[in-house]
C-alpha cells in the first residue's frame, strides 16, 4: 500500500526494520512471561522439596527383636499387664524403672502405655537411614540394595514423618520419638498474648491517627516513625526484647514479682517476653492496615452521626469502627500470620534451649514451631531434616488457614 505513496526517508526507516521490531517484541514477551513462570517454578520446587522430606522409606533397626523378649509362639500384644511389667523391669536399669514408677505408678498405667515404654526403652527402634520420597518412589531397587548392604538387620518401612504421634509428643533427643507438642503449644500461647497486646494498641493508634490527630509535628513524627518501624529488620526487635523485656524487666517477665515462677532459676526468657517482642514487631503492620480500613469509611457516615448530635467517641465507636472492622480484621490476621512464622527475634529472646515440657503460664519457658524447625534443620543428621520438613508442613497449614480467613474477611468486606 505504501508503494502508492511517495516514500520519505523516515518512512523507509520505520518500515524497513518493522519485522525486526515485532520479533523483538515477541521475544521479550516470552522473556517477561518466563520470569513470572520462574517465580512459580520456585514456589513449586519449594513445596515439592518439603513434601520430598516428609514421606519415604526408612530403615529401622531394633536393639532387641521383640520375638526374643517373649516365649516362642506368643507376641507382646497378647501378654497381660504384669507380664509386660516384668519384661520391662528385666530389661531396663533399676534406676530408670524406679523413675518411671515415680512419674506414674505402673499399677496406674494401661497395657498400651507399658507397651509403649517397652518399645521406647527396650526394643529401641532406631532409624539408621532414611530416604526421600523421590528416591523411594523411583529408585526403589537402590534403596533395597543399600539396606541389604549396610543394614542387614534393619527392617524397611515406608512411613510419613508427619503423623498423629508427631503432633502430640514433646521434642526428644531422638528423631523417631520427637514431636511438636511443646512447640505448637508454645506458638499458640505466644500468639494469643501477642494479639491481646498488639490488637488494642494498634487499633487505638490507628483511630488516633485517622480520627483525632491534627497536623502538628508530633503527629507527623508518629506517622513517619510507624513507616520506618515497619522496615526495621525483625532481629533488631529481638535485640530490643532481649535488652528490655528479658533483661531490664526480668522481675516482671519471669513472674518473680507475682511469685509465679516455674523454678528458682527463672529468668526473663519467657512466653511473656516473646509475646511483647512480637507485639512491638507487628504493631506497625496493624496500625498501617487499620488506618487504611478506617480511611475507607465514608465521611458521610461521620457527618450524619455528628449531625444527630453524637460526640466524637460515639461516632467512632458506633459508626466508624463497625464499618472498618472487616478491613481491620484482615490486616490483623495478616499481621498474626507474620508473627507465627517469625523466628529470628524469638531465637534472640528465648535462646534456643531444649524444652520438652508443656508451657503452663505466660511465665513459662518456651519454644515455638519456627524455633523448633530452626533447631532441627541445624542438626547434621538426616532424620532431623525429615522431622523439620514435617513441622514445616504443620506451620504452612496453620498459615494457610489464617490467610484463607483473611481472604474470607476481605471478600465479605467487598460485598458490603
Amino acid at each position, binding site marked *: 500500500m505504501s508503494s502508492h505513496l511517495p516514500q520519505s526517508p523516515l518512512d523507509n526507516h520505520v518500515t524497513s526494520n518493522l519485522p525486526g521490531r515485532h520479533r523483538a517484541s515477541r521475544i521479550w514477551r516470552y522473556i517477561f512471561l518466563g520470569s513470572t513462570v520462574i517465580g512459580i517454578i520456585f514456589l513449586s520446587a519449594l513445596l515439592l522439596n518439603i513434601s520430598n522430606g516428609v514421606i519415604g522409606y526408612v530403615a529401622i533397626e531394633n536393639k532387641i527383636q521383640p520375638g526374643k523378649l517373649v516365649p516362642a509362639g506368643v507376641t507382646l500384644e497378647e501378654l497381660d499387664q504384669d507380664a509386660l511389667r516384668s519384661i520391662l523391669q528385666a530389661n531396663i536399669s533399676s534406676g530408670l524403672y524406679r523413675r518411671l514408677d515415680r512419674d506414674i505408678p505402673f499399677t496406674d498405667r494401661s497395657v498400651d502405655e507399658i507397651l509403649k515404654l517397652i518399645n521406647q526403652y527396650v526394643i529401641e527402634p532406631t532409624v539408621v537411614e532414611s530416604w526421600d520420597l523421590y528416591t523411594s518412589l523411583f529408585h526403589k531397587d537402590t534403596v533395597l540394595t543399600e539396606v541389604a548392604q549396610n543394614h542387614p538387620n534393619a527392617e524397611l518401612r515406608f512411613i510419613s514423618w508427619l503423623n498423629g504421634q508427631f503432633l502430640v509428643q514433646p521434642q526428644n533427643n531422638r528423631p523417631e520419638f520427637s514431636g511438636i507438642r511443646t512447640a505448637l503449644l508454645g506458638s499458640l500461647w505466644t500468639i494469643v498474648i501477642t494479639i491481646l497486646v498488639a490488637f488494642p494498641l494498634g487499633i487505638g493508634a490507628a483511630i488516633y491517627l*485517622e480520627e483525632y490527630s491534627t497536623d502538628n509535628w508530633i503527629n507527623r513524627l508518629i506517622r513517619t516513625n510507624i*513507616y520506618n518501624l515497619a522496615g526495621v529488620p525483625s532481629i533488631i526487635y529481638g535485640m*530490643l526484647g532481649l535488652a528490655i523485656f528479658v533483661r531490664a524487666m526480668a522481675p516482671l517477665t519471669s513472674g518473680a514479682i507475682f511469685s509465679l515462677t516455674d523454678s528458682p532459676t527463672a529468668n526473663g526468657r519467657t512466653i511473656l517476653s516473646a509475646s511483647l517482642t512480637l507485639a512491638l514487631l507487628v504493631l506497625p503492620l496493624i496500625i498501617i492496615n487499620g488506618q487504611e480500613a478506617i480511611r475507607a469509611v465514608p465521611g458521610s457516615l461521620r457527618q450524619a452521626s455528628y449531625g444527630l448530635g453524637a460526640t466524637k467517641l460515639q461516632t467512632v465507636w458506633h459508626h466508624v469502627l463497625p464499618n472498618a472492622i472487616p478491613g481491620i480484621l484482615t490486616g490483623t490476621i495478616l499481621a498474626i500470620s507474620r508473627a507465627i512464622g517469625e523466628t529470628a527475634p524469638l*531465637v534472640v529472646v528465648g535462646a534456643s534451649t531444649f524444652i520438652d515440657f508443656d508451657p503452663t503460664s505466660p511465665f513459662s519457658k518456651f519454644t515455638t514451631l519456627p524455633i523448633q524447625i530452626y533447631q532441627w534443620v541445624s542438626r547434621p543428621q538426616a532424620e532431623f531434616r525429615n522431622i523439620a520438613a514435617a513441622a514445616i508442613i504443620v506451620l504452612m497449614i496453620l498459615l494457610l488457614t489464617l*490467610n484463607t480467613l483473611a481472604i474470607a474477611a476481605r471478600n465479605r468486606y467487598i460485598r458490603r
Partner: protein
Amino acid sequence: MLIDEFMAYITPPINKLNNDSTSAHNSSVDSTGSISLRRRSRPGENLIRGFLFSCGAVSILTTVGIVYELGKEALAFFLTPEVNLWEFFTGTKWQPQIQEFGILPLVNATLATTFYAMLIAIPLGLSAAIYLSEYATPKAHNILKPILEVLAGIPTVVYGYFALTFMTPLLRQIFGNDIVSIYNTASAGLVMGILILPLITSMSEDALSAVPHSLREAAFAIGATRVEVAVKIVLPAAISGIAAAIIVGLSRAIGETMIVAIAAGSGPNFTFNPFKSAETMTGYIVRISGGDVSYASIDYNSIFAIGLLLFFMTLTLNIISQRIVRHFREEYE
C-alpha cells in the same frame, strides 16, 4: 453504597472539618433558656483521646528504645579497652576469643548474600512486574499475582530449609562437591532472592500500573511495539517507584536472618568466594544470642554494636526509598 462512595468523593476529609465543628454539636440549652454555644468539657472523651494518643506514642517509644538500648550496649562495647573504633571498621578478622574485632568479614558476607539475592530478584522481579502490568489479561493477572504473593508469605525459616536441602545440593551437583562447601553464601543469597522477588514484583507493578493509560495509547498510536511501550515509555515513567522497590528489597536482604543463619554457615570468614561459608551480621547475632550468652560478656555487647550498625544501614535505605518516592515522583494530569 454508590451514594456512600459519591459522598466520600465530594466531602472533604472529616478530621479537617470537625476540629472547628466540635463546639457546634456539643451545644446545649442552658437554664436561662438561651442556647449556650460554649464547648462543654467531656472528661470521658478527653480520657479516651489521651489513651488513643498513648497508643500512637508506643511507636515512638519503640524507636527510642531501639536507639537507646542498642546505643548503650554498643557504647559499652566500644569503651572496652580491647576494642578500637578504627580497627572495628577496618579490621578483616572477627575473633572475639583473641580480641580481634574487625567487622569487615561480617559486613562483607552480608553484602555478598545481598548481592546474590539482587542478582535473582531484580531481573526476575522487574520482568514479572512488567508482564503482570503490561501483558497479562485480567484473568491471568488474577491467577499469577496471588501465586507470587504466596512466596512472600512463607516464613523465612522455611526458605532456610529450602536453601540447605535443595539449593546447596543443586549447586554442588552443578559445580562439584570440592568447590561448593555444605554451607555457602551463594546458596543463601540465591534463595534470599526468591524471597525478595515477590516484594519487588508487587511494588514495581504498583508503580507501573500507576502510569496513566494515555501515555501508552499515545505511544501505540505512533507505531511503537508492545515492548517499546513497556520499556521505553512506561518503565521510565515509573522509575521512581521501581527504584524505591529495589531499595526496600535491599534493606530487606540486609536484615534477613534465618536463611543465612541456616545456609550460609557459622564462623566469620573474610572471603569473596561465593561457594565458601561465611557468617553475616545477622547470622552472628542469632548464633551468639541463641547460645544463652551472659549479660556481662563482651560477646553480648558486641551483638548490640553490630545490631546498631545494621539498624542504621536499613534505616538509611528506608529513608532514601521514601525520599525517592516523595521527591522524584513523576506527576501526570
